[in-house]
């Protein structure tokens, strides 16, 4: 993939061969990981075909989530992101917010528990109950790691470094997707979560996260990262603010939708219709 043109801001010509190789490896690895995600889900569906039917929207959301991640990491948006902060931000919204939300709605853990043989499923649920997972998926930790990563990325030299090193680029993007997933799952997860935090704590963390995201967006409007022009920085920051809001509103709605169905009074069916 001819991916990296216009990537050096100074425009000093062709990249050294080994750097080109690094970027090519990155593309191939991303493609393989995403394909493995898609294939793994389909295989799990096949393995669990004898069980109760699996809601089709989950399968749809999972694959749409992988497609969003692909759109953020490969192809035209990713290419443009090397020279445009606005394109970078679009890729970031796809990879760090929209893809995690859709992947969480795909309920991969529930599917894995259905698909695995009993012994392996027990092992998986033991892992999910472990203290390490408990700490990592705690909303406070998940929000801090997610928002903290963003602050580091945009307020230090990490941002320019990310564009000159394929390894740093891969680590940053892996971090964005993974922490986005864990944070989203800790707030609105549909998978079984033995350590699910209270509604109150999840609400507070979501509000704090939205506040941090919008403060960072406005801060970036005034202080674009190193090497980003003012106009580009401003439109990227506005995209971060309003695009982030759109996803955040969905998160708030899903958080309350969970509360709404969990507090269903007796005598109402799942659709909330009063049975007489």
């Amino acid at each position, binding site marked *: 993939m001819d991916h990296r043109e216009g990537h050096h801001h100074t425009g000093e010509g062709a990249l050294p061969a080994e750097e080109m190789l690094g970027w090519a490896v990155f593309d191939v690895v991303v493609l393989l990981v995403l394909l493995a995600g898609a294939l793994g889900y389909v295989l799990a569906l096949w393995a669990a075909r004898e069980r109760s039917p699996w809601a089709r929207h989950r399968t749809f959301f999972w694959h749409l989530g992988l497609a969003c991640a692909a759109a953020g990491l490969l192809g035209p948006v990713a290419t443009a992101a090397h020279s445009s902060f606005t394109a970078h931000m679009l890729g970031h919204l796809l990879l760090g917010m929209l893809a995690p939300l859709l992947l969480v709605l795909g309920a991969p853990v529930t599917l894995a528990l259905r698909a695995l043989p009993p012994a392996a499923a027990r092992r998986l649920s033991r892992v999910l109950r472990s203290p390490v997972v408990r700490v990592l998926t705690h909303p406070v930790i998940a929000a801090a790691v997610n928002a903290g990563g963003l602050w580091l990325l945009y307020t230090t030299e990490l941002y320019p470094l990310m564009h000159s090193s394929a390894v740093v680029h891969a680590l940053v993007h892996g971090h964005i997707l993974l922490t986005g997933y864990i944070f989203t799952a800790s707030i609105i997860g549909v998978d079984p979560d033995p350590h699910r935090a209270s509604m109150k704590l999840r*609400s507070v963390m*979501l*509000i*704090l*996260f*939205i*506040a*941090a995201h*919008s*403060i960072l967006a*406005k*801060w970036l*409007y*005034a202080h674009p990262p190193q090497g980003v022009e003012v106009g580009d920085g401003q439109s990227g920051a*506005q995209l971060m*603010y309003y695009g982030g*809001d759109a996803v*955040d*509103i969905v998160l*708030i*709605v899903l958080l*309350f*939708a969970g*509360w*709404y169905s969990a*507090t*269903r*009074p007796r005598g*109402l069916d799942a659709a*909330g219709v*009063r049975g007489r």
Partner: protein
Amino acid sequence: MKGPTHTRLDRRTVISGVLFGSGIAASIIDLFIFHLALQWHHFYDLLTTEVALTADGFFHAFGWFITVWGLFLLADIRRRTEVPWTRWSGAVITGVGFFQLLDGVVSHKILGIHQIRYGVDLLLYDVVWIGSAVLLLLIGVLMLHRTRPARVPA
């Protein structure tokens, strides 16, 4: 048995309306009318101090959160009983007035997050803003007072 549940649902109706009213004042009225349609004040005016920026971030996050919260509370009341719509509307108007007053006094005047409009004499705008907020608040409280549930004798 009926009394306490009714009080709880009535309180929930008022809370729902006030949350929704404050929420739409914070998120929807401000965003669609003043930011996008009139473009009187902007996304970020570059003059705002860091403290005000932080406060604004929290205001903003709360705005959407309480809008959705208010609506889900309303849905919850609706699945339990008939919604007293006049009372709920009174609570919404109270919420809008309350938030506009808070915004007009605290964020415009005390914190200085942003002004209503730039390059004009602000006095008239401030008077209209705060005056209309107080008026809405009074109308809302009056509606709540007139629709208050009758005391159930014990």
